[in-house]
């Protein structure tokens, strides 16, 4: 064993070296690209959120991210904890709370329909929705963005919490086109029922979870 081990320049050696070399170059390229685009991507995401929130809460000028948990509400740092609900508090130029925005998602015709809804703390109602993402059929499902009559449902959709603060007083419900009677009902779009129901179910699910956590602490959001 005293003899030096001869250096092999066999093909398998060459293969490993080549692939290792190529992989290292590629690794450096990817890390470089990630580092140099990270700030721009984070900035884009923030602008996108702000734009969406300002759309559902007209007059807002500043957005802060919060999380509501059974133990209260706090500013969001890092990931959303288990059982928590993320929401956005929107303030106007003077720092007055304009409302709350939160995301809702429901299974639509093609894929998840994700919407952002604006909530007014005074009337305890939803005062606007905006679509975050969806893949619904153009000309049919996308009426939830354009149909003015449908959007009127969200001028003041009732999402008050019940006396025990455990759930909504009245669950948000999608009803057949033209049969809306109560402030917590959503009048479906004729011919786009699946998509409308996805929106209604999503909002109900999200509000059922968020409102009981949020309403008892809403005063903390006032500056």
């Amino acid at each position: 064993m005293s003899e030096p081990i001869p250096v092999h320049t066999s093909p398998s050696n060459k293969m490993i070296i080549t692939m290792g070399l190529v992989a290292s170059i590629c690794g450096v390229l990817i890390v470089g690209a990630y580092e140099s685009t990270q700030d721009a991507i984070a900035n884009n995401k923030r602008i996108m959120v702000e734009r969406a929130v300002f759309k559902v809460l007209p007059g807002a000028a500043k957005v802060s991210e919060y999380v509501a948990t059974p133990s209260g509400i706090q500013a969001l740092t890092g990931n959303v904890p288990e059982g928590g609900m993320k929401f956005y508090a929107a303030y106007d130029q003077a720092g007055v709370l304009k409302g709350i925005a939160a995301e809702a998602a429901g299974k639509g015709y093609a894929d998840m329909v994700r919407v952002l809804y604006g909530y007014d703390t005074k009337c305890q109602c939803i005062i606007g929705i905006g679509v975050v993402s969806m893949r619904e059929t153009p000309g049919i499902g996308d009426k939830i963005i354009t149909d003015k009559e449908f959007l009127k449902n969200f001028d003041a959709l009732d999402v008050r919490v019940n006396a025990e603060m455990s759930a909504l007083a009245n669950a948000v419900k999608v009803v057949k086109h033209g049969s809306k009677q109560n402030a917590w009902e959503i009048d479906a779009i004729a011919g786009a029922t699946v998509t409308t129901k996805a929106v209604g179910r999503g909002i109900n699910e999200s509000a059922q979870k968020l409102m009981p956590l949020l309403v008892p602490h809403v005063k903390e959001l006032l500056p």
Partner: protein
Amino acid sequence: MNPKKEIDEGITFDTFMEGVWRQNPVFVMVLGMCPTLAVTVSAVNAVSMGIATLFVLVSSCLLVSLIRNLVPKEVRIATYIVIIATFVTLVDYIIQAVSLSLYEALGAFIQLIVVNCIILGRAEAHASKNPPLKAVVNALGMGIGFTIGLLALGATREILGAGKLFGFSLFGEHFQPWVVMVLPPGGFFVLGAWLLLFSFMRSRSATE
């Protein structure tokens, strides 16, 4: 043409035009049909997808050509895939940094550029056998040809299916869009029509 190109180991105008016209990836080779059919619902999406593919194609062909004499032939496909995947990841980050709405519109098809057979095909059939400059010129032609193909589909589908081009309304308010054209079946209709047109032109020029 550029005389400098002529000297460099036989780069001719045809090296570039091969992909744009004679071997157009969409209309002649009918390659890369997955992104071709899926993202061409609007001209903007089509051009963005085309440019993203062009970037990956040119950069990976350059790198493949540079290391063509180093790579043992047993591991060449694996090496090419690693290289292509790297540039796709780069494009993925760059598009996110440029526009998130575009990123969402293109969806999974950005990542799927990895398996676009035009790129692996070029790396294997051309870049691995030719010097860097020639490989880049050829890849550029292929990429531009692919972009033209996507734009032809995207523009047609957007005009018919939404009454717009690059987001600008063309026909005024009373235009009833032909919605099926921006749905998946419309992709096949429009592609079929373009392929018909191209093969008609080719057969006519062959008989003349």
